[in-house]
């Protein structure tokens, strides 16, 4: 049983009803009771850490027998303590679909209640347990991120005939479209133990959310449950990734709370990661805001999860950008560098490798990003000499900060486009007016290049407040130069398109 965290459940006052029914028409149908080890004429209760599971049979005839697994979950008593340790801190904790929708809780209950059946053991009817029988599984409300198609893709290769109907969000607001739930019916001749294991794995995979922290023993659980079918499943990559969850290394509850819309917004701010992107693993680990562009390119480069294309993969743009910035800094002979908007510290790490740079400072507005940077850079294990060259602190580019002053160079790599246009004047004043490094390196997307991204609609990242054409970037740069006495030159980053220019544009500002 997985460890529960955050939600404490009382064992009274359940609410809601999560339902799953399993029927068979293989005669005598009532033998289903032997296979499931649950007597058809009894109502059996199984306490779960998150509620009460019951098994009973709404029908039990020789022609057709149906077992119902019903789970009562009580969200009101999913009470959080007053402490701050709870991982989640938003209203979604209290008003949520868990009491109604077939989620990982149902999967856990299913695994527990039908443990023996899932192992394929049945002393009374061993031959029946060993082979396929006519089964029909119904889940009235199954959260399915990826829509009915995904249910087809995941269950059909396993021999199921799939009926998945999307449920509308609200009949009174048809313009809102479909919800993420489907009513799922699976039919087919399948061995009962396999069917239970399919459900055990697929319910959380379709939901793409788990109610408990994913511990290392989850890998073992997956391998056990997937024995005999997962290895040959065409979607095994996706199933594995989703089952194990995209690990979010750090949760910032204060941030989530302030983000008004709770977790949703925070998710919005995460990169729109394609599941097959090669960078996914890294993204999952660091939570770094990798732009859609890289993702698109990476996707393009690998084209499908398992089979990398024969041709040489392109260097991701974020890498090219980092290289370009490092090259400029070397060219101008910067000995002290401040990375304004350092994120998880990739550039900072790169700069630390160059012993000629005596002082490397990473600044970010996000305390979470800084914590990630500290971890990525292994701050606690860094040799003293290197550690002495590195500084990390929280700061914002719209507040003057004497700590920004005194550097040879400042880097704003993919930062300005995250600042609201009315605040750019403040940013200019803070960076060029008061910090006043000898050189400022600014990179930002070239919006003209967006037409080259086939699937891109809108901007490259949901948090971008604008994306500039080359002319717009130059206009801003010239204004800054005039006001603060800098001189700007421009360079392309990434393959320069003859028509629309490079994907990233870089401005190098020098004082005087």
């Amino acid at each position, binding site marked *: 049983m997985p460890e529960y965290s955050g939600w404490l459940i009382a064992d009274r006052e359940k609410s809601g009803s999560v339902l799953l029914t399993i029927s068979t028409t293989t005669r005598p149908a009532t033998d289903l009771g032997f296979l499931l080890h649950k007597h058809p004429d009894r*109502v059996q209760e199984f306490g779960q850490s998150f509620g009460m599971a019951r098994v*009973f049979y709404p*029908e039990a005839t020789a022609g057709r027998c149906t077992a119902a697994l019903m789970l009562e979950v009580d969200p*009101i008593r999913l009470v959080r303590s*007053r402490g701050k340790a709870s991982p989640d801190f938003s209203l979604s904790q*209290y*008003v949520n679909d868990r009491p109604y929708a077939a989620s990982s809780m149902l999967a856990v209950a299913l695994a527990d209640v039908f443990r023996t059946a899932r192992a394929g053991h049945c002393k009374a009817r061993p031959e029946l347990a060993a082979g396929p029988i006519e089964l029909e599984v119904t889940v009235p409300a199954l959260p399915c991120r990826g829509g009915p198609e995904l249910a087809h893709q995941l269950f059909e290769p396993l021999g199921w005939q799939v009926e998945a109907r999307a449920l509308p969000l609200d009949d009174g607001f048809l*313009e809102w479209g479909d919800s993420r739930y489907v009513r799922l019916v699976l039919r087919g001749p399948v061995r009962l133990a396999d069917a239970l294991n399919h459900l055990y794995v697929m319910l959380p995979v379709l939901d793409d959310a788990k109610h408990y922290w994913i511990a290392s023993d989850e890998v073992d659980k997956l391998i056990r449950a997937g024995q005999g079918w997962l290895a040959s499943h065409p979607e095994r990559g996706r199933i594995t990734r989703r089952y194990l969850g995209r690990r979010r290394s750090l949760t910032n509850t204060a*941030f989530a709370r302030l983000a008004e819309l709770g977790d949703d917004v925070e998710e919005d701010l995460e990169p729109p990661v394609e599941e097959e992107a090669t960078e996914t693993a890294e993204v999952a680990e660091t939570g770094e805001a990798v732009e859609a562009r890289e993702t698109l390119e990476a996707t393009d480069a690998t084209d499908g999860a398992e089979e990398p294309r024969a041709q040489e993969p392109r260097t991701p743009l974020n890498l090219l950008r980092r290289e370009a910035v490092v090259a400029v800094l070397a060219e101008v002979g910067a000995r002290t560098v401040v990375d304004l908007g350092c994120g998880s510290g990739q550039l900072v790490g790169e700069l630390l490798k160059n012993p000629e740079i005596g002082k490397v400072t990473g600044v970010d507005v996000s*305390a979470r990003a800084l914590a990630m940077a500290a971890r990525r850079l292994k701050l606690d294990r860094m040799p003293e000499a290197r550690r002495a060259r590195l500084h990390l602190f929280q700061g914002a580019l719209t507040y003057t900060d004497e700590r920004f002053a005194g550097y040879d160079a400042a880097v704003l790599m993919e930062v300005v486009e995250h600042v609201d246009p009315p605040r750019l004047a403040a940013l200019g004043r803070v960076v060029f007016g008061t910090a006043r490094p000898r050189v400022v390196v600014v990179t930002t997307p070239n919006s003209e290049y967006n037409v080259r991204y086939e699937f891109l609609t809108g901007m490259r990242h949901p948090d971008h407040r604008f994306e500039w054409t080359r002319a717009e970037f130059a206009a801003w740069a010239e204004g800054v130069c005039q006001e603060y006495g800098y001189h700007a030159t421009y360079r392309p980053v990434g393959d320069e398109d003859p028509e629309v220019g490079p994907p990233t544009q870089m401005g190098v500002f020098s004082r005087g």
Partner: protein
Amino acid sequence: MAEISVPAMSLVVLVGVSGSGKSTFARKHFKPTQVISSDFCRGLVSDDENDQESTPDAFDVLHYIVGTRLRRGLLTVVDATNVQWEARGKLVELARSHDVLVDAIVLDVPEEVAVARNALRPDRDFGAHVITRQRKDLRRSLSKISRDGFRRVHVLRGGDIDEATIGYEKAWTDRRELTGPFDIIGDVHGCRAELETLLTGLGWELRHDDTGRPVGAEHPEGRTAIFVGDLVDRGPDSPGVLRLVMGMVAEGTALCVSGNHEQKLVRALNGRKVQITHGLERSLEQLAGEPEEFREAARAFMDGLISHYQLDGGKLVVAHAGLKEAYHGRASGRVRSFALYGDTTGETDEYGLPVRYPWAKDYRGLAMVVYGHTPIPEAEWVNNTICVDTGCVFGGKLTALRYPAREVVSVPAERVWYEPTRPLAPVVVRDPGLLDIGDVQGTRYVEIRDGGKVKIREENAAAALEIMSRFAVDPRWLVYLPPTMAPPETSRLDGYLEHPAEAFEEFVRAGVTEVVCEEKHMGSRAVAVLARTPEAAAARFGIADGTCGIVHTRTGRPFFDDPALMGELVARLRGAVTDAGLWEDLGTDWLVLDAELLPWSAKAGGLIREQYAAVGAAARAALPEAVAVLEAAAGRGLDVGDLVDRTRRRFANAARFRDAYARYCWPVSGIAGVRLAPFQILAMEGRAAAGEEPHSWHLSTLARLTSDIITPTRHIFVSLASEESRAAATEWWTALTEAGGEGMVVKPAHPVAGRVQPGVKVRGREYLRIIYGPDYTESLDALRGRFLGRKRSLALREHALGLESLARLAGGEPLWRVHEAVFAVLALESEPVDPRL
């Protein structure tokens, strides 16, 4: 008996050999915390007060403690032998670096006395030769100690040591006992006629001598004039100005600080070689025509002017060229230089005039600083500082600041008396609303009006910094964030979690007699900042891009990201204010309104679809099938207990839940369909109305807005003493909530002081399904254990901060002061509190 007089805020260095009785002397005359001894510091770093090896580290600690105390303006006494000039020199240097005066008190006792005393102390086992050496050092020191840089060296010998008493001299700059009211007058530069006109206009009565020359003045209301210096040079009648001001100062109706022109004129009169430029020639010429006695009196007067004054309990500082906070009340050459010449960078501009560092831009002090020196076209506030030199002698005007009213009064120059070297220009280029990280970061204590302080924890400030910089509107628009609001104590009434009865009870207990119940609109909390014209926006908020306002959420985000939509919304709201004639009637050209923006779906559409509608959809799909299988099982004779009934009830609850959220959703396109329901006027010109006016005023004033973008806030006043009145309000609430309303907010009808909730929200039974889940009515007993304390405490603190930001705004305080309080509200909002409350 010798009285030793030391400056009230200074460093006192005791000097004497070991055993000379320094510690005894210090104990007798000073507070234990004022005395820092080297023995004590040795103990701190080595656990042994006599460990001579630890002396260098001990003195590091000593210097650190002494430096910190001096920075904080505390009298500090150093108890160490200090017989060597190196040791004293470091202390003198330390005092100078904090711009405080330093006195030495030497205890000169015969060697045998010291040796005998040490012999009595078992812990001092060093030999008599140590004393001999110290004694030799002291002898050598005494001959030249006066050159060490002490303000005064007091040497005590024999019986004087026991009989001495300590007296404290107040600093010359310390006039904190004077509370005004003041008229602070800018650089006069010999413009006597304009000065007379200004004083008369301010209500002063001038006194004249036999020849009709003004020689004194008095204000019938007992006001005091303060001149910021530069009375002389350039203008037509410097002697006349001096005569008047000298008379006023002598009579005690005026104070005057020195300007750089007085300084230079004195030097010239003293026969020193100075460059006769910048109008000095005129003063010398004019003074040459005065009798010798007057010339001498004027010279003495100007020579005696001091660099700056601290007034009104430290809340006001007047200096000729301004003064940064670290220098207030301090005395040193550089303080005087700053006060006279400003913070010069050492460079000169294209006109050959010194370039000054704009210290006011970074000023964060609580004291108001009033100064002159640099002529500018209009007196302008910069971070609680104001320059009142409006270039009268150059044909500008002569300006006075009335304190504490902060009113600026000017009279125009009669003509250009002297051609300026460079055109008048504002000292400080207007910042793009720039704030410093030091204004918000770290653990902070924000002072509020009633004298209390609200603590902001570092991690909360860190969370708020990210939100503020990434999502919030321009801080110049962000003058207020609404506080959170607590529900009343939980109701025991069957079927209810919240009910008006508890709200009424709460206010009765707090001594409130009348409350107002306001309909709680189910939308999104909104703050609307509106300026009548782009000019008003520029003047009041410093926003000069032509926008006239903003509507933002409770966390400071713009309601619409599209500037065009925002512009349209603001324009319609301003139109409503204009149509109602409120600008004129309220005498303001800007307003800040507290409101609810409807519909809920306009801002929360994503949340409603992703969460509420999704829960509803799942429930409506799962529950009917659950009921069906349970009924079938029951039909087979299985004992499913009350599960069938329970599940049926849940199905009904799910339908009610769906109706609860659907009621607050309607489609909007652009701003068509958007409504604003204002319920309070937070602030306007000169007034933080939220903390001053009763709700009847707010509601009746806002009721005059009749535009179709405005939704009125229905309300009912309740006299708490009257059972009928309470019953009527309860009935009103019941009807409101049964018809789908969110509920109501109960507020004291008049502003109250103290720890009384400014309002409590009583939410309706159906609405609460959105908060507590569709089936919350099934488990009311469990929910009744909810904990309200933290929410209620938070509501009080945020409310106080909200009023504080408004008071700072209306009081014309600098942006960083307003922002500090606004930011604090956001920081508190990141504290973990049950979000269902």
